[in-house]
């Protein structure tokens, strides 16, 4: 009898709570305002984060509410947008990055739109009228400063094959990890299609560890990560050093405990686009404009640990102090990274490194 009561109680609570939750359908980040005339739906990947106040400002300015629909990781989200392009699941899509751009463009999922705010963005970041750059993150090798007091840390990709750094590096599998792929692309950019696989053979000979994803590499294997693992070099982000400093520490350290190998960085740009066939294209365009606004751009660093594309935007204090950005990172043209080419490269990499 008692058990029935418990069951009924939970059912009752559940149903009651369900009704209450109808108004709250963003994961604590977006704001969906039932009173406004329109809502714009932004499809993103799971790592999309923005301060509540920022999106509220958008709604106040335009009267349009924003509904965020996270859809898995970047690749998975893009697949879903492509799959539903005849009947889009949203109005705009954020999260296509350099490695996926050619695939997105080939599938014609975006409508052309050139925001006026693009004047404030460096020209080299504008690659196609269908997409608008929003932020860039550099995938770089990070090193644990404490492990490099005797030996100097590596500075270039070639350094990593030096026996002095044997058994120190952990990388992610490009097939399953976005930073892993970016790093592989960096090696292609440096050594070319003829030489990169040889480079990886040397890395393999130098006892490189391959794991599936960033969490495992950074959180478990990296000595500068929460687990204090055995590897002191990891493929991570240029924003990891500021992230590794405790903002409440007094006094703030001179250097972040984690450093960046500036000669290993690959520049990844993230884009947003208005979806072709969207239900609210005008609202989507306003949102795209907003994502290039100073308010939004100033927020991306602290929210998503990436760097704003808009020039002259003030970075948060920690970023200012501890982030090191390369002047000349590796890049590849988006149309060099076609889906077939990517798959081929991943195949080749897997053959060379894992098998």
């Amino acid at each position, binding site marked *: 009898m008692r058990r029935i009561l418990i069951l009924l109680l939970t059912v009752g609570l*559940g149903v009651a709570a369900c009704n209450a939750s109808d108004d709250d359908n963003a994961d604590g980040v977006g704001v969906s305002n039932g009173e406004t005339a329109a809502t714009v739906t932004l499809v993103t990947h799971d790592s999309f984060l923005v*301060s509540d106040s920022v999106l509220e400002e958008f709604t106040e300015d335009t009267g349009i509410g924003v509904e965020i629909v996270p859809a898995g990781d970047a690749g998975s989200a893009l697949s879903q947008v492509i799959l539903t392009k005849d009947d889009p699941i949203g109005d705009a899509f954020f999260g296509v990055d350099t490695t996926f751009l050619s695939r997105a463009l080939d599938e014609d999922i975006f409508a052309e739109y050139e925001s006026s705010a693009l004047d404030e963005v460096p020209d080299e970041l504008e690659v196609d009228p269908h997409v608008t750059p929003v932020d860039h993150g550099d995938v770089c090798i990070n090193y644990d400063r404490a492990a490099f007091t005797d030996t100097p840390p590596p500075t270039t990709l070639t350094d990593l094959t030096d026996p002095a750094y044997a058994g120190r590096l952990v990388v992610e599998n490009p097939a399953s990890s976005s930073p892993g792929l970016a790093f592989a692309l960096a090696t292609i950019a440096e050594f070319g299609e003829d030489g990169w696989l040889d480079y990886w053979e040397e890395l393999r000979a130098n006892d490189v560890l391959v794991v599936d994803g960033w969490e495992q590499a950074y959180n478990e294997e990296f000595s500068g990560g929460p687990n204090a693992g055995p590897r002191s070099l990891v493929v991570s982000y240029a924003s990891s050093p500021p992230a590794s400093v405790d903002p409440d520490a007094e006094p703030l350290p001179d250097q972040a405990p984690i450093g960046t190998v500036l000669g290993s960085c690959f520049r990844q740009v993230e884009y947003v686009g208005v979806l072709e066939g969207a239900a609210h294209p005008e609202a989507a365009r306003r949102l795209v404009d907003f994502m290039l606004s100073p308010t939004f751009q100033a927020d991306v660093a602290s929210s998503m640990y990436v760097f704003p594309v808009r020039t002259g935007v003030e970075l948060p204090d920690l970023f200012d102090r501890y982030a090191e950005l390369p002047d000349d990172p590796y890049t590849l043209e988006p149309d060099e990274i076609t889906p077939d080419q990517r798959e081929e490269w991943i195949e080749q990499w897997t053959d060379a490194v894992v098998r």
Partner: protein
Amino acid sequence: MDRRRGALTTAALAAVPVLFVGVFFAYPVAAILGRGLFPDGSLDLGALGDVFRGRQVEIVWFTLQQATISTALTLAVGIPGAWALSRMRFRGRRIVRALVVVPFVLPTVVVAVAFRALLGTGGPLGSLDLVPSLWAILAAHVFFNYAVVVRVVASLWEHLDPSTEEAARVLGAGRVRTFVSITLPALAPAIAAATAIVFLFTFASFGIVLILGGPGLSTLETEIYRQTALFLDLRTAAALTLVQLGAIVALLTVTGRAQQRYATAQRLRATTSIARRARTAGERLALGANLLVMGVLLGAPLATLALRSLRSTDGALTLDAYRGLDEVRRGPVVIAEPLAAAATSIRYAVLASVLAVVVGGLAAFAIARGRGRSARMLDGALALPLGVSAVTVGFGFLVALDSPPLDLRGSWVLVPIAQAVVAIPLVVRAVTPAIRAIDPHLREAAAVLGAGPRRIWREVDLPIARRALLLGAGFSFAIALGEFGATAFVARPGSTTLPVTIYRLLGQPGPGNFGVALAASVVLMAITAVAILVTDTERLSF
């Protein structure tokens, strides 16, 4: 006339589950398969040929291999465990019996994190360098499925008629001989049923292989995920899904017989239990060994998880990670709200269990009433969702449910529906034998006393099945709470669930976030355990 009305009632009972699973499983899967098999409007089975020629044969082969080894290992450890729980009476037996089930319903992400905490670098067994590897996968599989073998076999073993064994002993057979020639054959239906279930689960295992298997090891499930979600190569994904479906259907057919024999054996078993206190030193030793195995196998990963959640980066004991459960901030930004996510998960799970119990309960009644092929086919059809990739179903939703009256793509209600679809076969498994076990004389007695057919159902069938339905509800709740595949990788309007929050926290830079992910996993584990302990009662089988 009564017989025809009876058949009509059975059909009506079966209609609801068929419709539900048809709309929310068969239709989406068919839609996504259709995209792959009919890319330009005409059937293209070429991808199947590629599968059998290319490296994907290895994947199929590996899937079968790891499933077989996992099943064998689980049986090897589980059958002695079943002996301990069914033949030996000891203090705390009821609690152990209930706790044994908890790993089975834990969310994949929690288990993966727990095993990483145990076997990965920095963990107590980290020096064995077992993550990633096949061994880690096998260990996690045994962890997950131990409960299946123990509960299924124990529930039969406990009620075996002891007189046959005693007769053999009196006739001169030693302990081992008696076990091999009398007990094992009597247990065969249960062992066969358990083997089938464990094989199915390990064959279709996704999260474990994904997280603990590393880059080199992939199974059909993970490959389907990759082809569907990452590459959108629906052609290959469809071919692989067909292979998977073929394997599942074959498995269900072959083991359908085994299930039936198990059901019969359950029905014919004695009502008294033969459990008694350990008498000899040998028995005490064996009992102790089994309890130790249970403690280590099931407890170690979870204990490690809990302990790691209480440790800060410099090794001190702290509750900091738990303080972060309300809100995880990074400066001005809230990057996760685990407690809110927990509330969301519970809401969804309640709705999913209600759906699963109602639909699954109706299905169980229909299957228990029907005899022969159609009942078996319904049972098998409802079990298919266990073997089809959640990502396939999720993507199928996007493709299929996009026009009225089923324009549910943008609706949060798809999440509990997807969870219910996976929970329904488990409800059916738990409830059907309970209904079949109802003595038909009880129904007849009620009829003679004046109760019409509907009254009989309310007064006899329903109350007796209630315990099984409650267990089904508990299981559904736990499974829904921990569901990860569909909710993690498919577009979800609505609030985030706890497993997804944990997964996201794992992927965030920053030292505190990993700790909060661990703490949130412990919370998820605790809620699951409570749900099972509340709804599980001793006299229930699988």
